[in-house]
């Protein structure tokens, strides 16, 4: 009985959008609340990755030569390629949000699929890189062995292990977020195929978009910090 309900709530639910939750006055308030809530979640994520970045900075400061040597052994082409792939996926995600805002249903599905494919491309390249680490015994643990082939310096094995431990924990946590993001995108594609998103209500597209861009930002910092420590002739200590 919508009429009785509207009397109790004091709002005009007869014209309310079906997706409007009862505790919000209108769609605008609901949208801004979810935008803010998503940002609060992303800030907890920023603090989480912040801890990893601090660990990285401390050990990079303490064991700079080993970190520079470890960094130079990473494949700069694959790293750069993945950076471009992620930035492109951010563009397609932003375009998907635009499509949902203006009600382009088919184009929305196309951009969501493109974003998912680019995300999977990133993960595929990551698999190639991780495999290289396995082949070269660069995975920290019992069989770890690192030789500095770029600068031909003697590198402390323990310090090199620290670099690769941080490499795997940072890129691994990032990759885990990408996998979660791929799952969320799959859910979005299913919802978009069912025609659930309208210009009035498309909050999941916007908020998962925010998440996807956040994961992109983490990589924007990971790429220079891990891959580009010192690519010039080794002159510093």
């Amino acid at each position, binding site marked *: 009985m919508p009429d009785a309900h509207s009397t109790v709530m004091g709002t005009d639910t007869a014209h309310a959008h079906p997706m409007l939750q009862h505790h919000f006055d209108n769609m605008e308030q609901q949208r801004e609340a979810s935008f803010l809530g998503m940002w609060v979640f992303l800030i907890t994520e920023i603090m989480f990755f912040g801890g990893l970045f601090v660990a990285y900075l401390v050990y990079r400061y303490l064991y700079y030569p080993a970190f520079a040597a470890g960094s130079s052994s990473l494949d700069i082409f694959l790293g750069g390629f993945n950076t471009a792939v992620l930035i492109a996926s951010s563009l397609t995600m932003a375009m998907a949000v635009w499509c949902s805002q203006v009600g382009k249903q088919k184009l929305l599905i196309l951009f969501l699929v493109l974003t998912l494919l680019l995300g999977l491309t990133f993960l595929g390249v990551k698999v190639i890189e991780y495999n290289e680490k396995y082949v070269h015994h660069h995975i920290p643990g019992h069989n770890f062995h690192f030789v500095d082939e770029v600068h031909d310096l003697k590198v402390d094995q323990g310090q090199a292990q620290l670099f690769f431990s941080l490499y795997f924990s940072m890129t691994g946590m990032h990759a885990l977020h990408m996998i979660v993001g791929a799952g969320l995108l799959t859910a979005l594609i299913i919802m978009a195929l069912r025609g659930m998103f309208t210009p009035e209500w498309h909050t999941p597209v916007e908020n998962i978009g925010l998440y996807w861009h956040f994961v*992109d930002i983490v990589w924007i910092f990971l790429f*220079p910090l891990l891959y580009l420590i010192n690519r010039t002739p080794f002159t510093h200590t």
Partner: protein
Amino acid sequence: MAEHIVSPKVYIIIFLALMVMTAVTVAAAFVDLTFHLGKHVVDGAVQYKYNINVNPAVALAIAGFKAALVILFFMHLRWGTRLTKIVVIAGLYWLAILLTTVADYVSRNMMTYPLQ
């Protein structure tokens, strides 16, 4: 305040800017950006008191600028409410406090501990 719709043109411009900055940061990593200051001669050889390498600073400045573009345009924070903006700024401020932990490690070597 109605939902702000950003035109695809803006997104493409930001995308191109991000790609260019990625290329710049890779190129900059291959250049030795070290400033040599305090020139003096020791036994006929030129030496410098300070050799300041700014490669990491340049890389992080570019990354920070890229992140700012993503946050402001792709993530629509530029058109967000004041409440959202202040929440994000407060979050980044706490991140800055977290990052100053590094200062502890860096400053420990700066003074000599009075050992016997």
